[in-house]
């Protein structure tokens, strides 16, 4: 289980994340929502070691990963996708996933890569150069690449943006099948329909702090959440 404890990040005078804690247990899609600039991506960067937190810890099981390098965390089972894409643009779609499988020392990386591409629906584009894919397909490619490492925790940063409705539905099915296999999924997503459908537990972040948590229904009925998303009821001018 992934645990984030009291993580804070400051950029200059701006508090991006303030004492945030959360848990992502295996077999569950955990949602992380909040308005733009709430600190979701920063939190992902802290969990994957791309951003050093000012305070707080990141634990995977009973292992403290706070000081581990990004690569070490990946080998420990933390996989992720990026909101601003990080596909290997000069490689083909197939080579992107193949490399990920090779790095994870999968037994038959080639077969695994083909299988994963089929699974995310990119089977027909294996030979295409990744850098020229449309955003939505590149997101699916990042997903396949992250899955190649058989992660125990999978962090997805807005995987649904840029997908068509049908692709988004397929993505939801895929996420649910992953949790059925025991993967812990942490999902940042703006598409509330997707969040409502796949998440069993949702954390709401606002200006770097936990605003609310609970089931999707509880959270969306929460007045504080509505204010965060829609703004204050009254304006004191």
């Amino acid at each position, binding site marked *: 289980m992934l645990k984030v404890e009291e993580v804070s990040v400051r950029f200059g005078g701006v508090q991006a994340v303030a004492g945030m804690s959360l848990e992502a247990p295996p077999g569950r899609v955990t949602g992380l929502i909040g308005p733009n600039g709430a600190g979701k991506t920063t939190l992902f960067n802290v969990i994957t070691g791309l951003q050093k937190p000012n305070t707080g810890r990141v634990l995977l099981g009973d292992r403290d990963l706070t000081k581990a390098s990004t690569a070490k965390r990946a080998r420990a089972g933390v996989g992720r996708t990026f909101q601003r894409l990080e596909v290997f643009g000069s490689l083909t779609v197939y080579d992107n996933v193949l490399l990920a499988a090779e790095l994870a020392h999968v037994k038959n990386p080639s077969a695994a890569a083909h299988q994963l591409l089929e699974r995310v629906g990119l089977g027909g584009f294996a030979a295409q150069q990744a850098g020229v894919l449309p955003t939505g397909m590149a997101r699916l490619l990042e997903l396949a690449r992250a899955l190649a490492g058989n992660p125990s925790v999978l962090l997805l940063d807005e995987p649904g943006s840029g997908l068509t409705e049908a692709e988004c539905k397929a993505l939801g099915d895929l996420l649910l099948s992953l949790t059925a296999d025991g993967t812990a999924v942490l999902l940042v997503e703006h598409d509330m329909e997707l969040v409502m459908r796949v998440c069993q537990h949702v954390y709401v972040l606002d200006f770097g702090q936990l605003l609310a948590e609970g089931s*999707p229904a509880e959270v969306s009925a929460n007045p504080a959440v509505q204010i965060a998303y829609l*703004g204050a009821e009254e304006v004191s001018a």
Partner: protein
Amino acid sequence: MTSVMTAALELRGVSAGYGRVAVLHDIDLAVPPYGVLALLGSNGAGKSTLLRVASGRTSPSSGQVLLRGTDVTGRSPERLSRTGLCSVPEGRAVFPNLTVTENLRMWTYRPGVSRKAVEEQAFARFPRLKERRKQLAGRLSGGEQQMLAMTRALTAEPDVLLLDEISMGLAPVVAAELFGLVRQIADDGTPVLLVEQFARTALEIADSVAVMAQGHIRVTGTPEEVRDQVLETYLHTDAQPTRLEN
């Protein structure tokens, strides 16, 4: 100003995008000469692109941009700014590695705006900025940075003010203060185009509203007229019961 009816800023049949990808489709939008027009819409609806076109940072592939009735299509952002269009972009619209005073100095490019006047107005309005005038802007709190950014709108007396998600990442109290300021600027006679994700707050201070989706203006009207549609777009309030069975 030519006539009372001339829009402060008008987009006529504007389409725009990045390369072959169209983001805006044939947009018609007029910012009235008085009051606040709120532009709402979910992520990726094209609001930011619309503001980029209006401020000269992106050229439209077709259509016209008119400032006070004058065609300014294709004019550079710096020229537009000097002519009287004030645009506060998304995020922190200050220079983090300049001091507060130096930031204020950057707000003096509009002809007729003096360094002294900017400083006086800024410090009178926000005494906290005066206390920190020698600090780097990047060291200020989020709210203070946004105040510093807003002083440009206060002092430039622009023909039109474009605000892009100024409340992003701010505590509600601070955001409310900012919106109060926006309302006041509008009441003092500056027309405002406000892009917001805090829909409800925006509806409170807006005189008129336009809702965008998929690169089109879907709805325009008074805040009362569009309120229900906006809420639906944001939280899927109608979709909850059926979706929770999983």
